């Protein structure tokens, strides 16, 4: 076992630890106890603890304190996966009984591609519903029957993709889950959605890049790359960059990816930005203090304001920018101003709504 000192490059250590962890036989991990101790809190916080466990469970490190914590996380995730599966079956049944057919995105839809669902934890159930059914679905989830499920409801797919509801819906498919059927996107749409979600959220959770690696490696022979990449040039570039990142950081096998996408050159700022996002945990802090919480906890929100500064990835995607070598600061500034304006507009609307 190497005894490499921990040189502060936590992001790269996270990448090394997770590389190939989703495979049925993960590659052996050369890491010291000290390094494992350093990387474990980040893995646990970002939901990658179970994947970390897979890399160390057959090694000399398996009895270390950190490895035991990762093992416990795996057990906990496995149990939560069983609970979520039951809940997903129930929520689909409830919605269908009210004439609503939701589409599940991320979460279970990606977890089922892993060799064990417990490897890919998810906190909530992301459901997209036809835009004209959103209000009815929302009311159902606020009812006594529906509020016990942790559902994140979306109006169509507008938050995730540019394609129209009808188009993506027509390609969606039903998957068997225990005794129920769950509607998910087709593989092509789902991979595109996973890539854009990873970038739009500032790439802060390493497990999202693992999802992309798993999705790429599970691609079947009939996967339609034209369908996956057929959006505008900019989005094609984003998806190609994300796939290239999965290969570079997590050693994803990209043999099934078309040469055009594989040839994508990553801009120099991208990889360091991802590694920094994994290391800094700024997004966890941001989620703890959304700007909207300032109304109730102004001092706390003010203290956490710096965590709301967009990273270069989030800034670029938020401004629909290109992944080129130009400086990222203008995109970050633009994104920050856009979000502030959006927040003020929403607050105004809410106030007007309350007054009327």
């Amino acid at each position, binding site marked *: 076992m190497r005894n490499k000192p921990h040189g502060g490059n936590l992001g790269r250590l996270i990448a090394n630890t997770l590389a190939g962890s989703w495979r049925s036989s993960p590659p052996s991990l050369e890491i010291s106890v000290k390094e494992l101790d350093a990387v474990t*809190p980040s893995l*646990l*916080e*970002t*939901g990658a*603890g179970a994947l970390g466990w897979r890399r160390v469970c057959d090694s000399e490190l398996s009895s270390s304190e950190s490895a035991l*914590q990762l093992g*416990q*996380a*795996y*057990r*906990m*995730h*496995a*149990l*939560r*996966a*069983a*609970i979520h599966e*039951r809940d997903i079956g129930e929520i689909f049944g409830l919605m269908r009984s009210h004439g609503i057919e939701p589409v599940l995105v991320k979460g279970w839809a990606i977890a089922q591609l892993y060799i*064990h669902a*417990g490897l890919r*934890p998810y*906190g*909530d159930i992301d459901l997209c519903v036809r835009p004209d059914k959103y209000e009815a679905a929302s009311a159902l*989830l*606020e009812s006594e029957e529906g*509020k016990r*499920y*942790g*559902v*994140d409801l979306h109006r169509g797919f507008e938050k995730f993709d540019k394609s129209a509801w009808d188009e993506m819906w027509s390609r969606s498919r039903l998957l068997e889950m225990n005794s129920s059927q769950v509607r998910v996107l087709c593989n092509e749409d789902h991979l595109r959605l996973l890539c854009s979600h990873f970038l739009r959220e500032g790439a802060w959770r390493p497990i999202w890049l693992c999802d992309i690696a798993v999705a790429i490696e599970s691609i079947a022979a009939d996967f339609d790359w034209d369908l996956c990449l057929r959006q505008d040039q900019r989005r094609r570039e984003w998806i190609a960059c994300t796939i290239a990142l999965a290969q570079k950081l997590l050693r994803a096998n990209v043999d099934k990816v078309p040469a055009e996408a594989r040839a994508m050159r990553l801009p120099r700022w991208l990889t360091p930005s991802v590694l920094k996002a994994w290391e800094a945990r700024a997004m*966890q802090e941001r*989620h*703890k*203090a*959304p700007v*909207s*919480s300032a*109304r*109730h*906890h102004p001092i*706390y929100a003010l203290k956490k304001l710096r965590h709301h500064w967009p990273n270069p990835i989030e800034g670029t995607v938020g401004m629909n920018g290109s992944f080129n070598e130009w400086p990222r600061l203008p995109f970050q500034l633009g994104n920050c101003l856009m979000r502030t304006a959006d927040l003020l507009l929403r607050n105004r609307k809410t106030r007007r709504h309350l007054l009327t």
Partner: protein
Amino acid sequence: MSETYVRLPRARKDKLVTTELAGEKLIYDEKLDKAHCLNRTAALVWEHCDGRTTVAQMARLLEREMKSSTSDEMVWLALHQLEKSHLLEETVARPAQVAKMSRREMVRRLGIAAAITLPLITTIVAPAAVDAASCLGNGSPCTPTGPACCPGLACGLIPPVCHIT
């Protein structure tokens, strides 16, 4: 009736979510909000707690499944742990000589090699950071410094629950 012919109690099934992972049985008790991990021996005994199988039959079954020598005491030890974890419908009265026997004594009697087959139930405690990874749903109690509400929700002051922004 001899202790050997005592029938195993019925296992509790209500409000339990179970799954299997690498030879272990994981159980979440929704009633008590507790998660347990049963090793293979404890899981086998729990699965056969049907009110019909006798202690002696269970011991033979364990011997066959675990490919290791076993005894009635091992079954009693499993039952004791299952009862303590509230995983049985009924209480079981252990024979006096077994009730006094500690796990350590049993290891001494069975030998180190057989000791790994001893039933074991542990409580699964999520490492503190794991909970931080999940977000709180709409209506969940929250604090500004605790786990975050899911995106689109904010932690309210009165009442202190996650609500849609």
